[in-house]
């Protein structure tokens, strides 16, 4: 026994392969990371996805366009409104129909509320990944308020099948606008609290600044999008650059990472861009609520969606980034092919590039700062 212990062939001296996930507290779902570690240092990391594959695209090939919307809900379950909106504007592009003003405004309001809710989860979960538990519960508490608003809106708290191709399922409930504004007034100080507790905390800065830097060109080459790309200083936001809905009418600015605490494009920047985006979304909602026109929301709603033969690629700025739907129609009411370009899919693909040479704790932090949703990656 003893001589065996001394035998080098018995003692493992090489790298250790660590299987993080699919069941792990902080892989944000059922992601599996195959990590080659040398002590605490990560030398190679290999994401293995697909544990949540639900055949979304196969479903789409067998369902009419109206019935696909509930399934798009399930893709990014933290920003369902965005998924509905993205799919709907793509189908409307295919049909090319004009929507009534009120529908666009309602869509913008709910989409920005959803953006706040999703960013709250992202920010809180990032805090949870670096070990701060209290901010997570606070952000969840505020998210609940938004979900309450959505419940008055469409009855559902998580998977609203509210935005439909050609409109929304029904009009705003009474007092919805007032409640939204009341929530925004309540919400602004909460962001300051969050900044005091987490953002400016020395330990948090130590953990997140200078960690997992994404250089701008590499990020673009990897197809990273959304807050993760803006965190590395690229001023690219579809709502500004390619205004798809009525976003051209609103005045808001696109926060980008400046590297206050470290280098541009580190975890702290990605985190802080999300915090600032919540303020911007609140700004947009206030403007939209102020200008909300009256009218009917069911004008443009087609009875049966039956687009002409052709294909279309629609983009949308979701909370995770640049959602794309590539729809091929063969003239029937069932699409021939629906391909979803999921932002988190591309954002995750950069993980192995940026997280090598860091420690295991940093891999967790980087993963949290990328804000992935496995339901959207695996589809």
């Amino acid at each position, binding site marked *: 026994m003893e001589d065996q212990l001394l035998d080098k062939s018995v003692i493992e001296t090489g790298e250790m392969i660590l299987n993080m996930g699919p069941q792990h507290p902080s892989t944000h779902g059922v992601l599996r990371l195959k990590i080659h570690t040398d002590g605490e240092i990560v030398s190679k990391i290999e994401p293995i996805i697909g544990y949540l594959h639900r055949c979304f695209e196969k479903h789409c090939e067998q369902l009419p366009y109206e019935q696909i919307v509930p399934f798009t809900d399930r893709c990014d379950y933290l920003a369902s409104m965005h998924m509905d909106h993205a799919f709907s504007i793509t189908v409307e592009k295919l049909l090319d129909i004009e929507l009534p003003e009120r529908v666009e405004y309602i869509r913008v309001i709910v989409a920005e509320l959803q953006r706040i809710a999703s960013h709250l989860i992202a920010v809180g979960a990032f805090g949870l990944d670096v070990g701060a538990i209290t901010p997570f519960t606070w952000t969840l508490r505020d998210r609940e308020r938004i979900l309450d608003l959505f419940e008055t809106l469409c009855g559902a708290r998580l998977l609203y099948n509210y935005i439909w191709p050609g409109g929304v399922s029904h009009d705003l409930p009474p007092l919805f606008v007032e409640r939204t504004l009341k929530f925004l007034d309540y919400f602004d100080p909460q962001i300051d609290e969050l900044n005091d507790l987490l953002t400016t905390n020395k330990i948090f800065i130590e953990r997140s600044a200078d960690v997992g830097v994404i250089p701008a060109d590499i990020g673009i080459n990897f197809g990273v999008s959304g807050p993760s790309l803006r965190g590395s200083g*690229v001023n690219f936001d579809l709502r500004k650059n390619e205004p798809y809905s009525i976003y051209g009418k609103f005045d808001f600015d696109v926060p980008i990472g400046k590297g206050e605490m470290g280098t541009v494009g580190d975890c702290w920047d990605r985190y802080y861009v999300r915090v600032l985006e919540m303020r911007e979304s609140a700004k947009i909602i206030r403007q939209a609520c102020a200008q909300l026109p009256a009218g009917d929301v069911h004008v443009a709603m087609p009875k049966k969606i039956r687009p002409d033969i052709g294909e279309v690629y629609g983009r949308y700025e979701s909370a995770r980034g640049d959602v794309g739907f590539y729809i091929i129609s063969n003239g029937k009411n069932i699409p021939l092919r629906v391909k979803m370009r999921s932002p988190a899919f591309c954002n995750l693909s950069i993980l192995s590039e940026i997280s090598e040479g860091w420690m295991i704790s940093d891999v967790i932090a980087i993963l949290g700062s990328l804000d992935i949703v496995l339901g959207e990656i695996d589809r």
Partner: protein
Amino acid sequence: MTFSKIQKHIESKTQSKISIEEGKEAVFVSPNNWIEIAQILINDSDLEFNYLMCISSYDKGDNKMYGVAYNFYSTNRQHYLEVRIEIEDGTPIPSIANIWRSADWHEREAYDMIGIVFEGHPNLKRILLSDDWEGYPLRKIFKEPDYYHGIPVPKDKSYWD
């Protein structure tokens, strides 16, 4: 730049012919000259399509022709381009994973779902499905098997239907 300008520009740059279809804003290229055109797309100072948004593979329905659609975007010049390659089953397409790194996983997904082979890809294996899966699910001819490695797949709902 508009689509027609982009198309003219590409044609002026390269000898290898590219075709378009009526009413489709897409450039059809053949697998042989795809790498060359890809180099032009990313390197040319007037195009610089540095952002590969999506690679969509599709089945044309006739059990023979399969297609891939590349959607490009230029963050500097803010114009779009859709490049499409339609091939017979089995013909490989040169991989562009080393030009646009985002193509890596997208090509793996295309291989996983439709079974299009990208030659020159660093590791072309299934990404969403398990490695021992048989068949390519998004092909129109794909049938749900009765057994998955000996595990029966319960399909009918006769417990309540």
